[in-house]
């Protein structure tokens, strides 16, 4: 066995330079080489108590897969991960590992934790590049399960159930499978071919994917039971974008982050001569401080914006986005306007010519300065307006990235499905809803959250569905 690498720092992840990557949609992080992966794996102490596993929502057997990397058995390492995760190449890229597995790593007490996410990504990419092992189809048990939505929760639930022999059909409203992994997370953070590959793997496990089916419209949950499905998992995602309710939000040039990202990602508006238009170039303000806001800002930059602002009402410390994303955004030159809150979006208006083509297009955003006051119920210090501190920033486009509210389509068409005051589907600890045989997870339950927590809920529900139908 190789010696433990006692370097306090983890191996650096090679990335495209900020100057280079700000102009293209290729992936920012380039991934470890075999040598670097082994060196990083050798930093793992293989703790008997496995604190890292306790931090993982899908309970990947982390020390075991890392031990295989140490020996150069990359494919074996992949097999260990894939027993717990249906989407290793995705998780290795977008999980907030720093708050999960890596936060519990013993090496992090003095120095940096093992780069678990980077190793997971390395192993998954190795498998996707070199492996000729076809996933093994499990003997069918003849029981049909319907999954609504092909995002991270749905795909995870589908994969786990297919491995147990269920006949799984995933219904997707859009024309491409992947949910937020396709329409939301941009190419430079999660290449679409990686999502497509993970979906292909599920198909090889026997999962059927039906695109262009909107449950609640094309079919209802009750009809799925009539069609012979014995259980249904609802992973329909967060849905309706929130707006602030300030003047000017319907001006031309104001997007929700969902719309802006969908135009660029799903509809490929970032390509040359796209068939779907997007407003690009000029100065752009993104309102919000989450991962989605970072994605929107960095996408706008790559689409050719001359200047991109993030407008966030709290300070750097409270920014909810992943640290790495914020760091990348700053390196790329995104201008953070912190402790600022928009009060109005200003539109162009030529009173002398109602036909002026610039009329009703955005020309700026008016903000007020904020300061942090008393902590709120979640312990975050509440931002308070500083009187008479209004100022304007000249921009051409505003992207609202302040969260979403659950989509009402399924709730309003399913008898006996209870939701909470915010519209989220109510579930118990197994993911079971108020309706027999109907389970739910992901953003449809929690409101906007992370890919991995959605996957965790898909996994929990798959286990419960198996127990229910067995």
């Amino acid at each position, binding site marked *: 066995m190789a010696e433990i690498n006692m370097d306090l720092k983890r191996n650096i992840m090679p990335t495209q330079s900020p100057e280079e990557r700000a102009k293209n949609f290729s992936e920012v992080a380039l991934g470890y080489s075999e040598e670097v992966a082994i060196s990083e794996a050798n930093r793992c102490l293989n703790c008997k108590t496995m604190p890292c596993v306790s931090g993982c929502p899908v309970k990947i057997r982390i020390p075991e897969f890392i031990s295989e990397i140490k020996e150069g058995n990359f494919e074996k390492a992949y097999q260990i991960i894939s027993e717990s995760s249906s989407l290793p190449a995705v998780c290795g890229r977008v999980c907030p590992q720093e708050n999960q597995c890596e936060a519990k790593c013993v090496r992090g007490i003095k120095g940096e934790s093992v780069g678990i996410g980077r190793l997971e990504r390395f192993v998954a990419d190795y498998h996707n590049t070199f492996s000729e092992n076809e996933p093994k189809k499990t003997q069918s048990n003849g029981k049909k399960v319907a999954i609504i939505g092909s995002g991270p929760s749905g795909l995870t639930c589908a994969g786990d159930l297919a491995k147990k022999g269920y006949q799984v059909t995933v219904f997707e*409203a*859009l*024309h491409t499978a992947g949910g937020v992994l396709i*329409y939301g997370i941009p190419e430079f953070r999660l290449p679409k071919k990686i999502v497509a590959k993970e979906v292909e793997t599920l198909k090889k496990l026997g999962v059927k994917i039906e*695109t*262009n*089916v*909107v449950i609640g*419209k*094309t*079919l209802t949950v009750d009809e799925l039971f009539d069609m012979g499905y014995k259980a249904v998992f609802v992973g329909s*995602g967060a*849905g*309706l*974008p929130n*707006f602030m*309710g300030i003047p000017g*939000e*319907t001006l*031309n*040039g104001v*997007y*929700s982050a*969902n*719309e802006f990202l*969908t*135009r660029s990602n*799903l*509809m*490929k508006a970032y390509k040359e*001569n796209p*068939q*779907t*238009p997007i*407003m690009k170039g000029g100065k752009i303000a993104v309102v919000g401080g989450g991962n989605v806001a970072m994605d929107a800002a960095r996408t706008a930059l790559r689409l050719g914006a001359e200047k991109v602002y993030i407008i966030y009402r709290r300070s750097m410390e409270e920014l909810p986005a992943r640290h790495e994303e914020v760091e990348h955004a700053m390196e790329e030159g995104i201008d953070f306007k912190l402790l600022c809150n928009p009060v109005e979006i200003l539109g162009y208006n030529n009173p002398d010519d109602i036909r002026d*083509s610039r*009329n*009703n297009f955005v020309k700026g955003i008016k903000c007020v300065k904020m300061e942090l006051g008393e902590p709120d119920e979640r312990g975050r210090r509440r931002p308070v307006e500083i009187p008479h501190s209004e100022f304007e920033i000249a921009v051409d486009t505003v992207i609202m990235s302040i969260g979403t509210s659950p*989509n*009402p*389509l399924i709730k309003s068409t399913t008898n006996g499905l209870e939701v909470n005051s915010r519209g989220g589907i109510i579930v118990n600890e197994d993911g079971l809803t108020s309706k027999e045989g109907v389970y739910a997870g992901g953003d449809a339950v929690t409101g906007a959250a992370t890919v991995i927590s959605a996957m965790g809920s898909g996994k929990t529900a798959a286990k419960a569905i198996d127990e229910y139908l067995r």
Partner: protein
Amino acid sequence: MYRISDKKELNPSVVELDIEAPLVANKAKPGQFIILRVDEEGERVPFTVAGVNKENGTVKIIYQIVGATTKKLSMKEKGDYIADFVGPLGVATKIDGLKKVCIVGGGVGCAIAMPIAKALFEMGAEVTSIIGFRNKDLVILEEEFDKCSKNLFIMTDDGTYGEKGNVTMPLKKLLEEGEKFDEIITIGPLIMMKFVTQTARPFGVPVTVSMNPIMIDGTGMCGGCRLTLNIDGKKVTKFACVDGPDFDGYQVDFDEAMSRGRMYGEFERHAYEESCNLFKKGE
């Protein structure tokens, strides 16, 4: 892939397609819409359902060739396939309990108004239809409207067919003569729906308008189709894809909707010219 089972040209710029989509055909009701993509690179475009045939599992759409996508769609023939077809989306037009209704359709909007007129007729309501077009060559669905209407008024801008003038003229006359409609349902260009609403306002007749803003997913995810309603002096944001496409005409901010409809005007003109050039090269 979805097969085009039939294609008809209703006039030189308006095409009727029947598309095989059994699940959609099984559910679609008048007033709902579908979203399609012509091919793998295509944009998602909404079209209101113009009819269904449940036995054949087909959905009818009628569209005007106005931009790059409709131009591309018009090149598809019977037996060809389109990439995607999803629906039915939106809320069906509410017609329950209506006994006497005035349908006001403009241009290709008549294609959407017609199934509503038909559904009203079939449930025993008295239907007055006012349909307007730019000129004689663009008149569509006259026979179909005639079948289900007690009174039919055809208007053209240039007077080459029916009466010369716009749809608000006969509407105003009828209302002034004391016709008591339970509701006016109007579908067509935004400017027309705005003026139909204004015409009806003094008479206090409820007006339902069918909005057709730019949208992407059509399921309440992107928010691109938002519009503003003025409800009791308060501005309320609604999403046409899940809350509509039908709204109370008196509440809709038409000027804002018209302005939003022009957001990609320049892009669309450019794309249309490109596509025309492309097709010319192919010929």
